[in-house]
């Protein structure tokens, strides 16, 4: 990395000293602190090993694998429709969004395209998962900084979204609703109006969060200028989603690639922030939820009639080939590299999950920060453990 600030250089020197277990400057002893795997400030069981010099982190390394479930191996012994059950559980707060890129990859290999109505409903459910996922972050970020109230609002309003997802799919967390060629079912009666009312609630939730946190002086002091990830570092580590956009990169796979989905049928905006700090990451996600509600409203207004399932064989055999499909999931870029040998199941599936890359930057960004900021930075990078460990 070329970007080396003074504080980073100081941290480097301190790390050298801490190796000798003695700080020459302050004559204090270095200390190794484990944050996690069981710690209130970690989501799931991520463990961060930090070496401290006083309050300053001189070295940090996330240790993953406490929840590794070997999904890539398991996909090799399952049929294509069975795989969605597994990948539902990667990012469990936005499950439906996990299914979509895999189904799209299988459809790409088969040369099947879902009917327009299915594409619209897929996109609506995808954005609903984003709201369910990111709204929790919007409240949870407050908790990590000591503000208890926002998370209760987040859980309260997220419930409305989960109810809408449940009304369509039957599952609050693991819908398993996407099928090769379309969707399992059509929307239930009255769902469209209810969802629009929910979107109004989510917009006022965003306003509440803006009032409670974004304008809060303590929140600003704790997040502005903390955990700055410059643009080139973010790209080189493969950060994606709001983490990348908060570093000023105008890159959103919903807009920047062609997919048989309905995002291009709606008017919405990709928000970026030039700062790359914790505040920017929060702010970008807040705007993203607002944009998602706009997308859903517009797509529900223009929902085309028609079938929700294309003609596909009952026993699905995917022709030989390789396909890569990724989408802009709530946490960032989630993609599947699917290799098929013409069988009922995939030959190999490489799962590219967003949090794995997003959290790999931690050892870079945590160097030279202070212990309370470690929690802020990790919260703002926003990972789901299942998305790191797969």
């Amino acid at each position, binding site marked *: 990395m070329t970007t080396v600030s003074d504080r980073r250089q100081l941290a480097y020197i301190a790390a050298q000293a801490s190796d000798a277990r003695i700080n020459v400057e302050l004559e204090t002893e270095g200390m190794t602190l484990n944050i996690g795997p069981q710690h209130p400030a970690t989501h799931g069981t991520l463990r961060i090993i930090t070496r401290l010099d006083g309050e300053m982190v001189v070295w940090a390394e996330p240790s993953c*694998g406490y929840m590794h479930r070997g999904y*890539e191996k398991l996909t090799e012994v399952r049929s294509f429709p*069975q795989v969605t059950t597994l990948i539902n559980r990667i990012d469990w707060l936005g499950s439906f969004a996990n299914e979509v890129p895999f189904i799209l990859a299988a459809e790409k290999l088969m040369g099947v395209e879902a009917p327009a109505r299915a594409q619209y409903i897929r996109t609506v459910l995808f954005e609903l998962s984003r709201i369910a996922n990111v709204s929790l972050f919007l409240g949870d970020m407050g908790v990590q900084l000591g503000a208890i109230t926002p998370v209760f609002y987040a859980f309260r309003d997220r419930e409305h979204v989960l109810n809408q997802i449940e009304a369509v799919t039957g599952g609050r967390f693991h819908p398993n609703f996407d099928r090769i060629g379309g969707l399992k079912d059509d929307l239930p009666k009255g769902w469209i109006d209810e969802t629009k009312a929910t979107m109004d609630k989510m917009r006022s939730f965003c306003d509440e969060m803006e009032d409670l946190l974004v304008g809060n002086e303590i929140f600003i002091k704790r997040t502005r200028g903390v955990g700055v990830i410059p643009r080139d570092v973010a790209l*080189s580590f493969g950060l994606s989603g709001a983490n990348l956009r908060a570093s000023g990169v105008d890159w959103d796979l919903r807009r920047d690639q062609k997919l048989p989905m309905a995002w291009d049928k709606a008017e919405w905006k990709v928000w970026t922030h030039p700062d790359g700090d914790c505040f920017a990451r929060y702010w970008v996600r807040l705007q993203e939820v607002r944009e998602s509600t706009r997308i859903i409203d517009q797509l529900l207004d223009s929902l085309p009639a028609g079938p929700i*399932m294309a003609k*596909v064989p009952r026993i699905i055999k995917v022709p030989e080939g390789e396909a*890569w499909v990724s989408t802009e999931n709530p946490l960032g870029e989630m993609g599947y590299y699917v290799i098929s040998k013409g069988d009922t199941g995939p030959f*190999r599936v490489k799962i590219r999950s967003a949090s794995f890359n997003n959290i790999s930057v931690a050892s870079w960004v945590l160097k030279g920060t202070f212990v309370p900021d470690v929690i802020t930075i990790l919260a703002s990078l926003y990972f789901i453990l299942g998305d790191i460990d797969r």
Partner: protein
Amino acid sequence: MSRLSSTDAPAAPAVDELRQGVLARMQASLGDALAGSHLIPGDDLWMRVRADAWVAAGEFVRDQLGCDYFCFLSAIDWMPSPYGKGEDDPTEPPPERSTETVPGYAGGDTRMQVFARVYSTKQRFGLTLKADVADDAPHIASWTPVYAGANWHEREAWEMFGITFDGHPNLTHIYLPGDFEGHPLRKDFPLLARMVKPWPGIVDVEPMPGGEETGEAE
């Protein structure tokens, strides 16, 4: 192998100037080291480079082609699994299975390949790079100096496939316990859960009663 290589690419009439230009520039820069390619116009591009040009290819796509965004790096074991899908009857002797290696897009000569994907956020395209790694003691140069994000991905590929990345600063286990033996994503590593108990999900993929195997969904 030739079936899937660029020599007889699928007959798509569309001309993809962007990806063809990328391929031509890559060819001019790497010469012989570009061992194969596969292009689906308007969709995607695969390029296979010789293992000794892996880092040079990475630097070229980063600096010259503007692929600034690192997506992922992993490996593929092309040997079909000798255990099939782990659905054998444990009381019967296992059936004969071919373990002949058949490579995918852009070809390949070895059992294992390293592959990586990068994007250009300005020109808005992505490409997949592949490289063959030798069958015995597989190793390849590390991409960590090219893309910092390759660090964790190479650790994962190392423990899952047993591919050594030369020059990697910290090639240690990332998911598995430190004393784990074997490389789970290699095809000859059995899925033990399937070995000890027959898989109940097999009934899901059997033909439905009364339905034909290729019957259309109603």
